[in-house]
């Protein structure tokens, strides 16, 4: 194993070295970096050209210039000992400084989106595999194909128009006309009818129930002016938390023994109590407080699972921790929404933002600032999730179907295991093995994949840095961007290989 990793690291290093060389030549060849100066009519034109040639070493041929760049970049390999020097941009800024600012922006944008896309995509993929050739399966398959075929910038522009501009206009007077509520209710009814297939009576019942629930909820939200000052409220939190407890129990352990359920319900209960007990703490907490609270939640969940778990201690711990974190998340969202009203006033009613990562010069309570970030993240996240979600559902579905037809799954069923155990323990774990590779690729790819999203939503992240620098034929920032993106690809590919061997003992590393 160790030999394999060392070998992979060495090979990856040389691959990256070769890739930077190729990339450097391509970038150097992509245009004329002096063009804007040569076209300018400034009196000191010659001096400026001279200065830029000296700044970028343009008098050295590109292949040799690469080694100058490499010497600086080599410093980044040994942190603290040597100076990390990725050169200067065309305007004389240090590339390392530019990169660190841009990198943090991009990370904020992509991490949440990628994780969300993975969780959603894998869940939906599993469900469609279990319900193969059902209405749901066909609907999801078609949507996945549609999402595959969507140009992300087109979606992004649409989202900006309808998700932000029109939505904000509507927020000024957030009422839903009864006709719209009926139409949306019908759509929701049809949706659930397709999802929950069955005979005619069941379909009609599903449709009616979903229609009444959705249209009624919309009407209620509209009548109570919920959108003007949204929040979850204690009733919704309680119901969702208890539902969450049942859901996690169903997934990790089933209901044969009640201990796990009790642990999960206790976690949900403590969470709800905390809603009241921690009122003063959560008034304007710091980020550290939230992290600490999350850690306490995990600890309490483990304690509950340990104490109440009985024979199924491990499962009980899992269920309690997950339920606890989920309930905590609900409380967090509730608090964020609680800041909606004051936040909306401060940004003049334009709640959903279309440009940038933060409102410039915005200062407020923890919740207001959090909401500010969330509203800026919302639309780009949706855009990224839509596209990767499609890939994940397709891959998970086919991988899951493959596994479900294996002999060992049939064996598991024939020896009388509950369906939950078969799906979660026998099928799902094995189906995840090929998905790990996809995850690694996806994580590596999102850094460059966010180029377009950043561009449309005006985030000054790595993608914007890349595009603006490339347009100016500014080689050093482009190379800096590539160094990050390329390293991510190499590292994650390596992790995928190692993870693959770790998950599937049949694969021997050599």
């Amino acid at each position: 194993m160790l030999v394999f990793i060392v070998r992979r690291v060495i090979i990856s290093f040389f691959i990256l070295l070769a890739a930077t060389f190729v990339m450097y030549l391509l970038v150097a060849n992509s245009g004329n970096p002096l063009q804007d100066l040569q076209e300018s009519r400034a009196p000191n034109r010659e001096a400026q050209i001279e200065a830029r040639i000296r700044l970028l070493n343009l008098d050295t041929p590109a292949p040799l210039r690469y080694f100058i760049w490499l010497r600086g970049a080599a410093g980044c390999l040994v942190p603290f000992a040597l100076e990390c020097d990725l050169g200067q941009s065309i305007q004389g800024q240090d590339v390392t400084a530019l990169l660190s600012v841009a990198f943090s922006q991009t990370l904020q944008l992509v991490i949440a989106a990628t994780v969300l896309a993975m969780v959603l995509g894998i869940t939906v993929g599993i469900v469609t595999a279990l319900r193969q050739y059902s209405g749901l399966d066909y609907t999801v398959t078609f949507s996945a194909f549609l999402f595959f075929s969507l140009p992300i910038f087109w979606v992004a522009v649409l989202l900006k128009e309808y998700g932000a501009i029109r939505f904000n206009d509507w927020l000024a007077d957030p009422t839903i006309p009864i006709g719209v509520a009926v139409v949306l209710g019908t759509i929701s009814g049809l949706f659930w009818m397709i999802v929950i297939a069955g005979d005619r009576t069941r379909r009609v019942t599903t449709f009616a129930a979903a229609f009444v629930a959705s249209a009624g909820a919309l009407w209620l939200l509209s009548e109570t002016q919920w959108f003007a000052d949204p929040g979850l409220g204690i009733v919704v939190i309680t119901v969702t938390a208890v539902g969450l407890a049942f859901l996690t129990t169903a997934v990790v352990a089933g209901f044969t023994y009640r201990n796990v359920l009790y642990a999960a319900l206790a976690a949900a209960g403590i969470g709800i109590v905390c809603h009241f007990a921690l009122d003063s703490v959560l008034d304007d907490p710091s980020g550290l407080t939230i992290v600490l609270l999350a850690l306490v939640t995990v600890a309490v969940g483990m304690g509950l699972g340990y104490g109440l778990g009985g024979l199924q201690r491990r499962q009980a711990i899992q269920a309690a921790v997950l339920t606890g974190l989920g309930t905590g998340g609900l409380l967090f969202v509730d608090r964020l929404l609680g800041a909606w009203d004051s936040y909306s006033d401060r940004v003049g009613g334009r709640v959903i933002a279309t440009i940038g990562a933060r409102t410039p010069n915005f200062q407020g309570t923890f919740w207001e600032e959090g909401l500010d970030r969330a509203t800026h993240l919302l639309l780009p996240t949706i855009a990224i999730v839509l596209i990767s979600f499609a890939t994940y559902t397709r891959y998970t579905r086919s991988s899951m179907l493959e596994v479900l037809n294996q002999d060992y799954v049939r064996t598991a069923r024939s020896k009388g295991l509950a369906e939950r155990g078969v799906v979660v323990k026998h099928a799902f774990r094995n189906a995840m093995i090929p998905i790990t590779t996809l995850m690694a690729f996806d994580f590596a790819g999102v850094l460059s994949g966010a180029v377009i999203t950043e561009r449309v939503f005006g985030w000054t992240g790595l993608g914007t840095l890349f595009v603006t620098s490339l347009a100016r034929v500014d080689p050093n920032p482009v190379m800096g961007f590539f160094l990050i993106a390329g390293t991510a690809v190499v590292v994650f590919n390596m992790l995928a290989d190692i993870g693959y061997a770790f998950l599937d003992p049949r694969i021997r590393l050599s």
Partner: protein
Amino acid sequence: MSDPTTPGSIPAAAAVAGDAQGMNVVARTQAQMVRRRFFRHRAAMAGLITLLLIVVLAFSSIGFASVPGWWDKDYFSIATVENRGRPTLSVIPTWLGGDGMHLGEHPFGQDNVGKDYFALTMRGVQQSLTIAFIVGLVGTVIGTMIGATAGYFRGRVEAVLMRFTDVMITIPLLVVAAVLGRRYGSSGIVVLGLVIGLVTWTGLARLVRGEFLSLREKEFVEAARAAGTSARRIIVKHMLPNIVGVIIVAATLAVAAAILLEAALSFLGFGVQDPDTSLGKLISTYQTAFSTRPWLFWFPGVFIIAIALSVNFIGDGLRDAFDPRQNRVRD
């Protein structure tokens, strides 16, 4: 997948069973079975028809090269903007309260300087399709050649070629395509398609190599080698026909990806350059006009989605047709 028998044994087994029951069984070749399965794939057929309609519409309406089309306006003449450039296309018949079904003077409206937007969009479709086709073709040919060579010869050849592939894979596609587009975008769409095709072969090369690694151990390859057949002939005549399905499917999906890649590049400004146009460039140019003149944004976008979606469906149908084990057996 629920069928435990291999696809090769199905016709034989069916023939025996058919004879036993006195039924009439038609013998089909592999190609016929593939074609049959493909034509029965409804989504793929819908995609194929949509794609053909779009191609015919795009190339017949404004014509191409020096061949004139049936549409009386072109995509470069400047005219006066009538009625704020609103589209005159109407599809709601009068008995439904619409304006009747007619194309009107400018069915897709006009742009800022009064160019006919229908002609512009059609030109964009032509250019995008051409680029995507060239990219798909070049990428497939190179990927197949590199993968086949590496997989057949193994040893040092494979090591060199696959390390080279690894190097190319390290560079994210959009990034290298943007860099190349920055340099070659103004050289016309054929050059642009060629250079982008030069960097999109990596996935296929790995796929073909993998297939070749297992194929070269098969008896028929050994037999051919024992008979003294040249390596080139073994690769082209004996091995490639066995994985033609994999290659065709990959090529189709590569075309779909290339449509979106071209659109993305043109959107970032590194693709097709003025005075030429493409679907991505049209969207990029008019994205700010969305709230005032949304049709300038909708029409090219709908065409991109329609093309990419139908090509993806065709690819899916081809995959099912070539490898019925992967999906529902449709015959």
